[in-house]
């Protein structure tokens, strides 16, 4: 059992930092990632032959970590999906590495996902997440074609806007629900946050990108040609005709469908545990790796990590600075707005289930969270729409597969477990 590797799911900052820490202590690890290259969300690597758009500070942090990964000769398999871990401790991997393995422990470092609040028209072609635009920029160093509008809320909108400016393809406008620049608390953020924000704003102002704060994208209409975005600004309604809309309403742990396992240690690290951003993910990865190593080797656990606490405090401040009334608008969306895009279920379908439906009723009668995403995207809004004040929770118990698994892939996985037990 002790020669079985520790499986690390996710080759972003948290996963790689944990891998480095565990390997330093002599523990065998295996890092997998569903993407074709390592880097995760922040350090997503450009495709071969594409020049990197990473800034100096980012590139520096990354190359330091990679040097350690190489020094420890950590095995990494990209293009490999984690299907989940079952109650016997078997983990399913499909893709480039296709096997059932029985790891000694599992580190889930699957990062964050974006949250996008339903609005009329949010499922139209041409509407994507701001993060999808960013990852396109990182891998291809290319902006999307046509006029781009960024809308929603969160620091990512300014970051993506600035990256588009650097590619000489500035967005038509940025629609931000909060008013971060008008909040005096902004100046109390840690210096690196402020310099980052200042850089973004400099790019955006130089390119004369209209920035609307305290504004909301209320509806997207499909015309023959472009998309028309209707905006509620503080000075009244405005329309923008665009080709691409990048929506973003914050980030959440990417933990839907990830189950723990009673028979082996399972640890969640980085944004997957608590979405606090890159600096925290790196700190959490190192600290979590140390903690797990101590647990497995029976040595003294490390002292609590102050870096992480600082980042948590900074993120909490950022969240207050970015507070806005967008959720109130959720309650006002028209009944025919789609809430669950996999199964095409609307707010009217949700209301038809009556007050306070059970998880079973939501799933079986309402068909919410019954499609390919199993609630990853819609559970938050189904929960909010049932009770605006309560924090949303998953619809029903988490279950693997965390993502759909092809039957053909599943049947061709090698099965060393079977051989072992025979």
């Amino acid at each position, binding site marked *: 059992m002790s020669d079985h590797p520790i499986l690390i799911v996710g080759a972003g900052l948290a996963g790689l930092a944990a891998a480095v820490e565990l390997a330093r202590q002599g523990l065998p690890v295996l890092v997998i990632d569903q993407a074709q290259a390592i880097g995760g969300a922040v350090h997503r690597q450009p495709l071969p032959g594409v020049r990197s758009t990473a800034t100096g500070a980012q590139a520096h942090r990354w190359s330091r970590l990679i040097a350690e990964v190489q020094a420890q000769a950590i095995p990494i398999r990209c293009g490999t999906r984690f*299907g989940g871990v*079952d*109650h*016997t401790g*078997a983990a*399913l991997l499909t893709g480039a590495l296709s096997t*059932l393995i029985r790891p000694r422990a599992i580190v889930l470092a699957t990062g964050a996902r974006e949250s996008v609040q339903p609005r009329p028209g949010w499922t139209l072609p041409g509407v994507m997440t701001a993060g999808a635009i960013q990852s396109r920029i990182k891998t291809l160093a290319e902006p999307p074609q046509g006029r781009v509008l960024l809308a929603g809320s969160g620091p990512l909108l300014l970051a993506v806007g600035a990256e588009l400016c650097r590619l000489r393809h500035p967005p038509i406008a940025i629609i931000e629900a909060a008013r971060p620049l008008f909040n005096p608390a902004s100046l109390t953020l840690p210096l690196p946050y402020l310099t980052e924000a200042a850089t973004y704003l400099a790019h955006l102002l130089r390119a004369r990108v209209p920035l609307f704060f305290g504004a909301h994208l209320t509806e997207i209409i499909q015309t023959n040609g472009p998309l028309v975005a209707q905006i509620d600004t503080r000075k009244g309604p405005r329309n923008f005709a665009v080709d691409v809309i990048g929506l973003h309403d914050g980030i959440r742990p990417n933990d839907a469908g990830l*189950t723990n396992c009673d028979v082996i240690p399972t640890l969640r690290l980085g944004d997957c545990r608590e979405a606090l951003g890159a600096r925290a993910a790196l700190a959490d990865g190192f600290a979590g790796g140390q903690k797990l190593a101590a647990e497995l080797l029976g040595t003294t656990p490390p002292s609590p990590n102050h870096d992480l606490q600082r980042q948590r405090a900074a993120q909490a401040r950022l969240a207050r600075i970015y507070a806005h009334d967008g959720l109130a608008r959720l309650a006002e969306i028209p009944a025919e707005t789609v809430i669950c895009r996999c199964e095409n279920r609307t707010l009217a379908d949700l209301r038809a289930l009556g007050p306070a*439906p*059970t998880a*079973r*009723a939501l799933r*079986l*009668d309402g068909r919410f969270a*019954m*499609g*390919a995403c*199993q609630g990853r995207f819609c559970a938050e809004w189904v929960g909010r729409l049932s009770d605006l004040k309560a924090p949303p929770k998953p619809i029903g*118990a988490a*279950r*693997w*597969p965390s993502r*759909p*698994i*092809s*039957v*053909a892939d*599943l*049947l061709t*996985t090698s*099965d060393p*477990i*079977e051989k072992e037990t025979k």
Partner: protein
Amino acid sequence: MPDPAEFDVLIAGAGIVGASVAWHLASAGLRVAVIDATGPAAAASGASDGAVSVASKKPGLMARLASESLLYTRELSTGGPLAGAFHARPSYVFGSGAVEMSALDALVSKLADLTGPVRVTADGPATLLPGLGGAVDRLVVLEGEGHMPGHKAVRAYLSRPGITTIWPAPIRAIASDSNGVTLDLGHRKLRGNTLVAALGTATLDLFPALPIQPRAGQLIVTDRGPVDALRGSLTAASYLVAKTGSGDQLPLPPVVIDPLTTGQYLIGSTREAHGRTDQVDFATLKSLLSRASQIWPALLNRRVIRTFAGVRAAVADGLPIVGAMPGQPRVLMATGFEGDGICLSAVIGREVALMVQGLAPQSHWAADLAALSPARFENTAQKGAA
């Protein structure tokens, strides 16, 4: 003196059996309340396949009950409460190897003896069903059976006016006397003239002396796809062996492939001696899917989007428990339907409603129903009640 009864009948459990009993009693004009710990279809009825099948039942009593329930389900689905919940469709049973061959022989002769609502329309090679893969030596095609998702039936039954539903409300304790029954719901008490306990596997919590055992089953759901040539369930003969035989080693995985009206497939299922709904494992998944996709290769183009486990309430002697508890005339049991509760729910609801009203069943039923009475465990049950 306990409070006067608020309801004529209290029904514990909003599974398909409790819901059917409630509908029949409300239709007879009684004041009914259905109480559930969680909500409608929260246990087995919301985590099962929905075969309304005679083919899979043990010859004799269970096959007779299933035939009657199938006929009655069809009746309730034409303009009645089950319209939209039940749909008729063919069923296919396949086999290969000696054990499965003889199970198919037994199936054909059982259906001939029953002269019931299910008939064999074809019996021959795999080529009878286009799309069937290799590894099938013989296929039996049946007409007359159907499919009914448990949650749809529960919702349909309970939407009848006159049924009060109370949930989430776990029943903590039951106290019965000669005039009625009082339920302890923690924050309040509820009084009724009669209690029907339709608690599935949770029967054990409140009636620990009854010989009920959990039997978990794992199920797989695929994504949507084109609705293909498979119009009804495709059942391995070893599934019949598992359900009707002595439970010894199965020659091949007892797989059932069910095409859902959504264009998804539901693939099941195992029969495991525990009650955990969170135990779904890759090895089992692979073995079920491996046989399923040999039989129906179109599955290879699908993706698994969900897996889950449901728990059946099995009874030591293989028969459901229906009727008044010995020594507790105001408490009627309707439980222990194992893998057949969806199929039997219509007729059980009708008969339990008659029992509650003190009405006799039709004479040709009397003996079969009497065989289901909890009185058959009297010695053990009384020990537990003491």
